[in-house]
């Protein structure tokens, strides 16, 4: 082998090695001492149309004692400006790659929330599967809450908004991508879970919350008790603004009909021998579809739901035989469950329709499957839509 060939191969080897380093991000190692890992962002309406941004920053430590601190920037015109100011105020360069939660204060949701959220859509450095929720109050307060089980706040909220919570129908979980998709779709609508904080106990936990609150705002105070989070209600959006609200039962009905929920518990009251008996039903949804049909120029939204239910508990003591036969749900309980779900679902539809929120994507479905009717009806498609329900419950074996 000639010297030239050997030199060429050595050259190629080193070039390839350097290139591999480039592709594997070895030039991108970051100085952890100078970088703040933002795990959650809270966005509140400030004074004079400005934004107050709170970033929850994880502080990596050895062992399992993870800590987090909150840093707030007030009076920013844009989220981007606030993020830059975080760097200015703290000397830390905030990285948003690990941001998994965006909380919107209730006042923020009164205006178009995409004024703030589109920052996260523009940035290639924020994952769009981060969870989004509205706070019943200020997002800053929610991020300053204390979890009773020692989690840092964003982790505790993330658990409340987890996919497991979604599967049981208790919470209508949404992420940035899905919320943005529904906003930019023809319906310009969407939904977000409503996160409220409930004081559980004053100094009630033996576990010390691993949370530092180092907010720059002077009036920020440390919580002494522990808080629990509730996200059983849902906020409806139209044109990016909050326009309505679903309560816990409506949220469950919406989840059973329209989201990934396939297993849920709910109470059904029936009259038995002159007494009102409440049965706690374990329900498994086996089929759910929504179709929009064109019936004489009227969009008809057809819900089809098939579910299997089993009595998990009842408000009166059952005989040994009844307990033994709990796998077989009495027909009158099943019919009552069908009626209740239909009524709740109808109230969800009416609430959304009245508020102008195209919660069941009627306009988008019309655009895709009945474009002529969509063109003809325009903005009035939602208000003209009529629901039809086909709900059947059977015994869960």
């Amino acid at each position, binding site marked *: 082998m000639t010297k030239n060939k050997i030199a060429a191969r050595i050259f190629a080897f080193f070039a*390839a090695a350097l290139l591999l380093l480039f592709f594997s991000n070895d*030039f*991108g190692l*970051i100085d952890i001492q100078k970088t703040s890992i933002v795990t959650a962002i809270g966005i509140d309406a400030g004074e004079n149309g400005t934004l107050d941004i709170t970033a929850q920053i994880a502080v990596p430590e050895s062992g399992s004692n993870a800590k987090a601190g909150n840093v707030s920037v007030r009076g920013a015109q844009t989220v981007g400006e606030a993020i830059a100011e975080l760097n200015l105020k703290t000397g830390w360069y905030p990285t948003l790659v690990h941001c998994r939660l965006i909380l919107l204060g209730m006042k923020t949701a009164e205006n178009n929330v995409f004024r703030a959220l589109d920052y996260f859509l*523009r940035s*290639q450095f924020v994952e769009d599967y981060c969870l989004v929720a509205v706070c019943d109050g200020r997002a800053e307060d929610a991020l300053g809450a204390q979890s009773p089980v020692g989690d840092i706040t964003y982790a505790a909220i993330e658990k409340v908004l987890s996919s497991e919570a979604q599967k049981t129908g208790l919470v209508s979980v949404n992420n940035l991508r899905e919320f943005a998709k529904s906003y*930019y779709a023809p319906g310009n609508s969407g939904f977000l879970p409503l996160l409220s904080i409930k004081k559980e106990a004053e100094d009630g936990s033996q576990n010390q919350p691993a949370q530092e609150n180092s907010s720059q705002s002077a009036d920020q105070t440390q919580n002494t008790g522990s808080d629990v989070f509730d996200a059983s209600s849902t906020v409806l959006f139209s044109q990016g603004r909050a326009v309505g609200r679903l309560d816990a039962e409506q949220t469950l009905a919406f989840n059973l009909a329209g989201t990934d929920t396939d297993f849920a518990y709910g109470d059904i009251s029936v009259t038995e021998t002159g007494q009102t008996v409440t049965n706690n039903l374990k329900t498994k949804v086996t089929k759910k579809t929504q179709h929009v049909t064109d019936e004489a120029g009227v969009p008809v939204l057809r819900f089809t739901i098939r579910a299997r239910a089993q009595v998990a508990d009842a408000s009166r003591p059952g005989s040994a035989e009844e307990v033994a036969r709990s796998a077989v749900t009495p027909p009158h309980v099943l019919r009552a469950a069908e009626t209740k779900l239909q009524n709740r679902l109808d109230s969800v539809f009416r609430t959304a329709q009245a508020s102008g929120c195209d919660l069941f994507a009627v306009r988008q479905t019309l655009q895709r499957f009945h474009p002529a009717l969509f063109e003809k009806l325009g903005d009035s498609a939602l208000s003209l839509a009529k629901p039809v329900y086909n709900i059947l419950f059977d015994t869960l074996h």
Partner: protein
Amino acid sequence: MKDLSVRQICFLFAAVLPVTRMLVYPATLAFRAGHDLVLSALVNYAAEGAVIFLLALLAKKTDTTFFGLLQQKLGTLAARIVYMIFALYFAFSAVLPILEQHGFVLQVLYENVPSFLSFVPFFAVCLYACTKGLRSIGRAADLAFPVFLVCFPVLMFMALPESRLSALLPVGGTGMQTILRGGTESLSWFGTAPYMLFFLGNFRPERKSTAKIISAYAVGAAAGMLFLALFYGIFADTAILQQNALAHISKYATSSTSLGRVDLYFVFALALVLLFALCIPLQMSTFCAAQAIGCPPIFPALAVNAALLAVTSIFHQSYLEIQTFMTQTVWYVFALFSLVLPVSAWLLKIPARGKRAPKGVRLDKK
């Protein structure tokens, strides 16, 4: 011994070149053609496939290189001029993919932005590949095919559950004009048909080689359109926001697992396939320039890589402007060089089979 085999050409069209259309192309196409992006892509694939079919057919009719055909018909000087023009075209066509790849790696794999110098080793690798001629393209295709065969289906499998294909409805709803405009503005991603022109005489046509090549191209096209369909099914009206689609399409499958972004292993592997694909236009440019000038490939290779390094260092912050220029202003250059000129090779006088025309300088002979 020929430099390329039919198998390698098939691998190139089925596995290497489709990956180049999985970064910025889907979002760009969604911006122009909306939910009809697959139809728009179909127009491009059909046009490019037709050109490749005609060139594969031409390869069956002649054993002569394109240079030889030009020489016979128009003379040596004209052949050299045509080759030099194509050398410039290939170098020009490499600008956008290089900037695209540069941005892809920085945005997907890096949390901060490293110096541009980090990207310079690409040109060193490319320089080495350029001096090795067409044979190295074939070997790269051999290496890339199994990587594609494993990684692409895995990523599609991860993307499938999140995709709602009803987002593609109503088919054709955006109108023919929009679909065709999407096609014309995507031509910069469909500049691969001329490769086949320069493969003429450098591979030995086998029995049913035309069918094999066009079938391989169809497989690559199907993979590309499947990617587009799943991409739009996932992002729908927000698809235009998703630059670097390859890195985004599968991430939702892993977002809820404790393993994190395992899909990035497969994305990383495909990024290396992209690297091979990225070298090809520069290799072709070197090949053509060396033929035109009649010199060893190292000199044009140095010139081409240095020029591209300079262009990339100047414009690496201006991807959007370059993309707009390439797709909306000079789209006809790509139409001319990737569709019209290759087909016009049929107009050259075809010598009788077995009668070899004199060849230009062979770059890849040891």
